[in-house]
């Protein structure tokens, strides 16, 4: 059996007395696309942010590609990873945010080139070539020297995806990538993501786009109140939800 790309074993997380994640168990195989759906406040974004250690988990085990996230195990002792190691691991995981978070003081190409140049220390020529071809891949080869403020939301999100891909990640995390977009622009971003999935990228997608989940997702997880209520193949869960909570949520979204 291959090592799962993401493996969560009773992952627990709380902010003070508020329990955000109360025992999450799931596994994502390489090349799998997992979609996480659920009402806001269900902990789905928090879980996603735990995967690249933007948030620290308080209990359970969470590992990416067979290695613990944020910790190292020697014997039966667990050591916290130093900052540098955490950064090195994050560099292998791409993340796309709801509000794009492009760097406004850099052009589209500079946004994409920044991390490969400064984090990985790759040569300028190689990075620039990759940056240009990534922009072409997301359909924005004419926007190379444009600042993010001059791009539409959909274009910004496509640049953000290209920026994450420039680090050649083994896993991509999407945190509601289309929720801040005009309805008309959602399609162009989903198209890029669909292409990624077809190319075999391992993806964890927090989304409200049930159509995308049904069509592209290999598996689907429905979360509420910090636990996984239901999981399975997207078609089955969406067409025939077993749980009352899932049913009432889906009746409002679909």
């Amino acid at each position, binding site marked *: 059996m291959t090592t799962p790309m993401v493996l969560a074993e009773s992952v627990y997380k709380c902010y003070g007395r508020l329990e955000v994640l109360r025992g999450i168990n799931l596994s994502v195989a390489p090349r799998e696309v997992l979609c996480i759906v659920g009402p806001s406040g269900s902990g789905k974004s928090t879980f996603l942010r735990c995967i690249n250690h933007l948030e620290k988990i308080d209990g359970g085990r969470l590992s990416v590609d067979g290695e613990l996230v944020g910790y190292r195990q020697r014997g039966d002792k667990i050591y916290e990873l130093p*900052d540098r190691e955490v950064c090195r691991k994050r560099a292998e995981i791409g993340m796309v*945010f709801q509000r794009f*978070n492009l*760097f*406004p*003081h850099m*052009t589209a190409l500079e946004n994409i080139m920044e991390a490969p140049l400064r984090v990985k220390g790759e040569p300028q020529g190689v990075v620039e070539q990759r940056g240009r071809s990534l922009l072409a891949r997301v359909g924005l080869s004419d926007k190379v020297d444009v600042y993010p*403020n001059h791009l539409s939301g959909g274009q910004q999100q496509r640049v*953000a995806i290209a920026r994450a891909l420039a*680090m050649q990640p083994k896993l991509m995390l999407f945190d509601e990538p289309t929720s801040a977009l005009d309805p008309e622009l959602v399609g162009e971003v989903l198209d890029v993501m669909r292409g990624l999935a077809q190319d075999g990228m391992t993806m964890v997608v927090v989304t409200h786009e049930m159509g995308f989940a049904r069509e592209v997702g290999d598996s689907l997880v429905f979360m509420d109140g910090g636990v996984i209520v239901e999981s399975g193949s997207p078609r089955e869960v969406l067409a025939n939800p077993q749980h009352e909570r899932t049913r009432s949520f889906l009746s409002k979204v679909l």
Partner: protein
Amino acid sequence: MSTGQDAISDPTIPASGRPAAIKAIPVRHPWRWVAALVVLAFAAAVVYTFATAPGLQWSVVGQFLFYPEILRGVLVTLELTAIAMVIGVVLGVVLAVMRLSVNPVVSSVSWFYIWFFRGTPVLVQIFFWYNIGSILPYLHIGIPFTQFVWVGTTTRIVTPLLAAILGLGFNEAAYMSEIVRAGIISVDTGQTEAAQALGMTRVLVMRRIVLPQAMRVIIPPTGNETISMLKTSSLAYIATVGELFFIQKEISNFNYDIIELVIVASIWYLAMTSVLTFGQYYVERYFARGASRQLPPTPLQRFRRLLFHFHEPPPVGPFEPPPIYPHHEDRVI
């Protein structure tokens, strides 16, 4: 309401092409003229009073305005301001980053520095550095674990100019660090998260992502601080530094033309701050790139617009007819 049906029947609007710009008679503002007259009369009274003041010799002002000693004082003032501001900005950035550090020791050191240097008058600080030689007559600088020790007389090392630079610069750093901190905090946390998600270290995130964006917030108050420093540098007279205020005071001690020489100094201070104000616009424009879609006009452009295009509508490009949608007429709102 209907879709543009009434508008088309208006004879002033041509059937095709862009409608002519509105030529309306502008609203009159009589109170602006009244206010202008009152201000003008008041200004005339002030000018007349000073121009004809019996004890004021304007010829002395003219005589000393470009006096070599005064010019040297102007240069020293500029030098003092520049060096103190450089120390203030560099140390201020370091202190701000320290203050926001996750390391509690580092952040409390910064807090203590700001508490101390912001809490004592800058005049006292300059005076302290100026007199440091009285408690520490010799300075010993040694490299640990080597035989190297360098000894010097304090009064030789801490010259009046250095005393003023230390006093002004260290004090400024405390204020600048708060300005820089405000700038850093103003940057959206999503920026830090996005950079961290790309694997960037804390230092890299700060240097490449946060600080460049914070600059937009940091620059205007820094310009303000520079202008303020230009005037505060006059406090260096307590350390007998030959800057503008000290020089004019020395001269008037000699010839008793106190007000005349204060006017000379004021003219120079005003001239220098005016140049700085002007320069600030251009620095702000540079750091606004990417942040706003259109750069703000330079003072020169603004002045030209005020003079020549006062009531004119904004310039427009060539006309492109809007696309015609076939069922437009049916869609009555």
